[in-house]
């Protein structure tokens, strides 16, 4: 093996309330991809932030190129050739691509035009298609991710830390990224790659480090392991296998939700929803596949009453609800987990119990005559904590203090309960670890089996295939077709997601 560029030795990191890293030692060699694996809150981000100088270790040593170094700030890390792509984008939305990339790495007067040229050249060199003068807020998440990478490359980093870089990318974008990583290390650089996705780990890494509860619980070579073993190492037990969706006869079931000709088109722009027609039966999961930003969120919000359609009708149990508000739809028994749970689904500074009340503040569940029955609400919350195995000391801690996975569980628990007739799940497992994903999937199937209708929006094809009764594919605000699960091959769905209509093409 080539020489070690990074050696983290016995790093311990204590936050006020948590022991995030407990005697963690990791070695990264030249030209190597180290995958860092572990469930939510295992301490992956923390250990890497220490390496990058964002946090400071409580104890332990960092050795770079065989010399002990103190890294007090990201500036010093950069000087050592270390660069990090944060788990949550650390771009300034109000600035341009170029401004973001040169941030912190330019001196004195800035000739923005010259810098833009420089950035464009750099992007071309790596085959990235990034508009250097565009504002970040106008870019898709995939492009933003590329900007993050360019930012690291701009510094001539030789050690690149990527914290869940694929969480928001499309399959194609992921492939591009993988190719990039392989190219990059082949030039003698090193990469630390944090992810929850086994497939990527097996695809790109040389060494795999698995963390649990702040400790390292295994370091293995890729060749010597498999996905199942890794999963076991990560969560400490095997995953339950889920019962595959049955070929229920939908014709016999009642139609719960009927969407007719639903369109949202702002003046002078392309429609975000383009004449959508679909039906969801009771006890059915309708999967909606598609590359992100193809109108899925607008569809969910239109169904939930948060967006006003410009045309079309929505019928719930035969009743026209097109003109009703979010409040009314909650009352009618709709549940909705938005894809951005942090923004739309919870109030981080409020307690678990208070978050359980979020959608029910106008309902009678825990409120009578405008007065909240805290006792009843707390009891309910404690029950939910138990039932969903939410990792929280009690119902009075703030949701913000939970790990991402547990936050998602809180939202899922609430919405599954709120949605008495229809639950809309938008990206319910984004960023979750395997155990949590498994749990959420079980919940979704459970809801379906209790007779509820479910709409499941996901960019993960495996998730769609694993849960849906029928699959609709969305492209540019249109439904490309609705198919029974099993009718679609991965190739065909891929084409549909890219806007091709394979059948029609054949006819033509």
């Amino acid at each position: 093996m080539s020489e070690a560029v990074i050696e983290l030795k016995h790093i311990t990191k204590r936050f006020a309330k948590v022991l995030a890293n407990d005697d963690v030692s990791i070695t990264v060699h030249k030209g190597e991809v180290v995958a860092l694996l572990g469930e939510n809150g295992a301490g992956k981000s923390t250990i890497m932030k220490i390496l990058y100088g964002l946090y400071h270790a409580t104890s332990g040593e960092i050795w770079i190129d065989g010399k002990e170094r103190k890294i007090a700030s990201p500036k010093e890390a950069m000087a050592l050739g270390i660069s990090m792509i944060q788990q949550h984008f650390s771009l300034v939305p109000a600035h341009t691509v170029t401004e973001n990339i040169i941030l912190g790495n330019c001196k004195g007067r800035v000739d923005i035009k010259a810098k833009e040229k420089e950035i464009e050249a750099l992007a071309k060199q790596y085959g990235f298609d990034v508009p250097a003068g565009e504002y970040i807020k106008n870019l898709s998440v995939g492009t933003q991710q590329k900007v993050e990478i360019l930012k690291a490359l701009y510094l001539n980093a030789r050690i690149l830390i990527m914290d869940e870089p694929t969480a928001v990318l499309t399959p194609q974008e992921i492939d591009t990224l993988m190719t990039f990583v392989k190219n990059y290390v082949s030039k003698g650089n090193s990469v630390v790659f944090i992810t929850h996705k086994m497939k990527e780990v097996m695809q790109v890494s040389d060494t795999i480090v698995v963390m649990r509860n702040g400790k390292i619980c295994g370091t293995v070579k890729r060749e010597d392991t498999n996905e199942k073993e890794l999963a076991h190492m990560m969560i400490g037990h095997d995953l339950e296998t889920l019962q595959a969706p049955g070929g229920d006869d939908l014709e016999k079931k009642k139609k719960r939700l009927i969407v007719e000709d639903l369109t949202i088109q702002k003046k002078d722009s392309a429609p975000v929803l383009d004449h959508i027609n679909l039906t969801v039966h009771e006890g059915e999961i309708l999967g909606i596949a598609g590359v992100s930003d193809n109108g899925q969120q607008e569809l969910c919000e239109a169904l939930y009453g948060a967006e006003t359609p410009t045309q079309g009708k929505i019928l719930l149990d035969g009743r026209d609800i097109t003109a009703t508000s979010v409040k009314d739809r909650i009352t009618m028994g709709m549940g909705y987990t938005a894809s951005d749970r942090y923004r739309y689904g919870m109030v981080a500074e409020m307690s678990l119990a208070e978050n359980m009340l979020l959608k029910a503040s106008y309902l009678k569940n825990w409120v009578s005559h405008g007065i909240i029955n805290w006792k009843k609400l707390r009891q309910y919350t404690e029950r939910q904590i138990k039932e969903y195995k939410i990792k929280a000391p009690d119902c009075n801690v703030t949701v913000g203090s939970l790990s991402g996975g547990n936050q998602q569980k809180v939202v899922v628990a609430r919405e599954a309960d709120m949605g008495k007739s229809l639950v809309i799940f938008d990206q319910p497992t984004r960023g979750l670890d395997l155990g949590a994903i498994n749990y959420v999937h079980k919940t979704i199937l459970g809801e379906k089996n209790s007779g509820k209708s479910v709409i499941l929006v996901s960019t993960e094809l495996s998730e769609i295939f694993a849960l849906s009764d029928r699959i609709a594919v969305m492209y540019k605000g249109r439904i490309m077709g609705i198919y029974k699960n099993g009718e679609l091959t991965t190739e065909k769905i891929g084409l549909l997601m890219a806007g091709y209509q394979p059948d029609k093409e054949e006819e033509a």
Partner: protein
Amino acid sequence: MKQNGKIKDFLLWTVLAIVLGLIVSFAFLPLLGVDPVDSLKIMLTETFSDKFTMGNILIKTTPLILTSLAFAFTYKANLYNIGAQGQFYVGCICAVATTLALQTKLPGVVVLLLAFAASILGGGLTGLLIGFLKAKFNANEFLVSMMSTYVVQYVMQLLLRTALQEPKHEYLKTAYIDNSAWLPKIIPGTSVSLGIVIALAAAIFIWFILYHTSLGYRVRVTGLNQDAARMSGISPKKMCMTAFFISGAIAGLAGFTEINGMQHMLLTGFESDIGSYGIGIAIMASANPIGVIFAALLFGTLQVGGTALGHSTDAPASVIDVMLGFVMLFVLMSFFVRRKLEIRKLKHQKLQKGEA
């Protein structure tokens, strides 16, 4: 148990900060030839020697509770109503106008009730206007509420020169209101009126609204996360206006307790600092409506103490502001120090547990 320790800690640090603030302010007194130790003694004896002066503490506290509740309520909704001063003035105007117009025509109790309602409504509508501008035009409420105070102040001057001026039309003030429309005094030997009870009730009322009603809950949700509120069927705009209305109403109520309970007329320059004091008080109490009562009491005591100091020694009147300023500064700093120490203690505990 743990909660108790926290409260004890909080009290300890706050008292320490107050003492430190007083020491620093008194340290300046020798510059004007005033003996700080003597003046401290005088201040304490003068403040707590007789019932009347102690009553003054409650009188000072009354409007401070209300204006600080006004700030605290919107603060909980992540909104900033720093126009409590203006809303207070509107409350004053409404209370005094109602009282003067009706005092000869209706029985005292009825006049009081109407003045009460008018002050709440006046202050509330002023607040509502700010909330409306924010909701409808996305105007920065901090800026608008700040400016509204100045505007109200001049409008009040105009009214005091014209429509509301005392019958002799000599000075910028209203006539004295009739005895029948005064809030009854509740502690003999002092001038303490029912106003303090109203203020205490308002604090409890606000606490109840915030933490025990769905309305208060929705206000808090909106303050913390507007998007989540919208996705939960809560209209952020409506909540913003509601919060501002309630906040303004509470500040307006202070106008009622001050006019009908204490001053019995309205004049220019009346209680010109209670708005900004209210902000400080609210924060010292972490915007907790019940805590506000105690913080206001502290401010009231310092004000009365400072006044006694100014009256009985050669210390200038400006020493009150110096004192309040330093006390606020040190209390706010103590929040930081306390938190720092708490975190360090937690880490330390963990460390020992880890090693054990």
